[in-house]
């Protein structure tokens, strides 16, 4: 049974229970540590596309700190924050730069709109980079920039 903390429980032969932690790949750990020190909004997904971290700057953009939200899947993410295209339509999950980076293992860039918890919409540019290691893809990082001419709220970050 997976717990939110990342611990797993396993039953031993004699029936006692022990817990052990499934370790995040080192590359994700280092990426998170770097992102924590950045003032640029940045997001981190694992190899399965699960959002596993975003930094304080991203939290300011979205109106919710990661510690309040926790790891979320793409459906929940989409219902909370979008993103949307220039016509206000939700962008399919498969077309998001982060998903391209994880699945195709190549950088991807897009302009899109995200919605913060107060309902404000922010037009941003997104660049996503795959995290490739000797053991294959471990996830991806996405960095957001406010679209300079269009989004005054995000530009104030």
């Amino acid at each position: 049974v997976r717990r939110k903390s990342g611990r797993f429980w396993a039953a031993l032969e004699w029936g006692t229970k022990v817990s052990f932690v499934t370790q995040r790949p080192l590359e994700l750990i280092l990426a998170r540590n770097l992102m924590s020190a950045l003032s640029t909004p940045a997001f981190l997904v694992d190899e399965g596309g699960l959002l596993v971290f975003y930094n304080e700057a991203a939290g300011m953009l979205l109106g919710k700190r990661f510690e309040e939200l926790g790891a979320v899947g793409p459906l929940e993410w989409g219902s909370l924050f979008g993103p949307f295209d220039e016509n206000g339509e939700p962008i399919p999950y498969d077309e998001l730069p982060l998903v391209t980076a994880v699945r195709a293992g190549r950088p991807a860039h897009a302009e899109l709109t995200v919605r913060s918890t107060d309902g404000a919409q922010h037009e941003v540019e997104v660049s996503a980079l795959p995290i490739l290691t000797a053991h294959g893809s471990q996830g991806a990082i996405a960095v957001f920039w406010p679209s300079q001419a269009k989004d005054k709220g995000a530009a104030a970050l």
Partner: protein
Amino acid sequence: VKVKLWGTRGSIPAPGPETIRYGGNTSCVGVTLSDGSLLALDAGTGIRCLGLALPEEPTRLHILLTHLHLDHIQGLVFFAPAFRPQTEIVIWGPASPEASLRDRIARYVSAPLSPVEVRELPCDVSFRHCPETEWEIGSARIRAASVAHRGPTLGYRIDDGDSSLTYIPDHEPALGADIDELEEDWISGFALAQDTSLLIHDGQYTDAEYPGHVGWGHSALGHTLSFARRTGARRTVLFHHDPLHSDDLLDEVADEAGRRWAELGGDSAAVELGAERTEYELPARAAAPAPATPA
């Protein structure tokens, strides 16, 4: 399971009257498993003395390298069993996209740095990249995982019966992170050290020295204590001493480590500084628990 420290120094050998008690040889730990299988953790200059202590009869030995910085491989060409045809040596280490383990080690074990080449070693030597999954050597299950250091670097966990040994000599888990605050699965090396019987861990710097060495790949005393507390290590040995640290200074660090560990609620005797030739026999069952994590 018997563990013996043959080299506890980091970075570069530091022989001299100032380092006699803790030792001047670089990283090497000898492990004798419960079935008699022999492991050497790293091959710093300490492995030379380990080799001299081994019998000359046919020997099979596994050398587990955490990484290939010189202070962890420098003793290879002075390891006496490597020059005996009856010896079989399996060298395990981290994979790299750049070159095989054998080729990377051969950069050191070759001219002009070495008088012998890998292919000239009389022993039967083979090189293996550590798998991502657990594997077995003798009576032990071995696990290797990448840890925060400079370049591809592994930590090891060796489980034999109810005992476990965790060896992470070069490690900076606090780089850009607060170990006391992070979730467990986001702490570098956590799974290797969780509830381990004996943790041998990087403790190169004092807390006062660390700010001048951020990103160098090593831990300060406070980081190591936090890591040990979070992982629930039963006993902790600080290792990879800075070459500038004299015995007298390390005595002060040892006193401080015990005091701070006691303040965290642990047994002050459960934290110590590694000294050359110190031996440990791992208990069949864990004894003193580590201090509980504060709420």
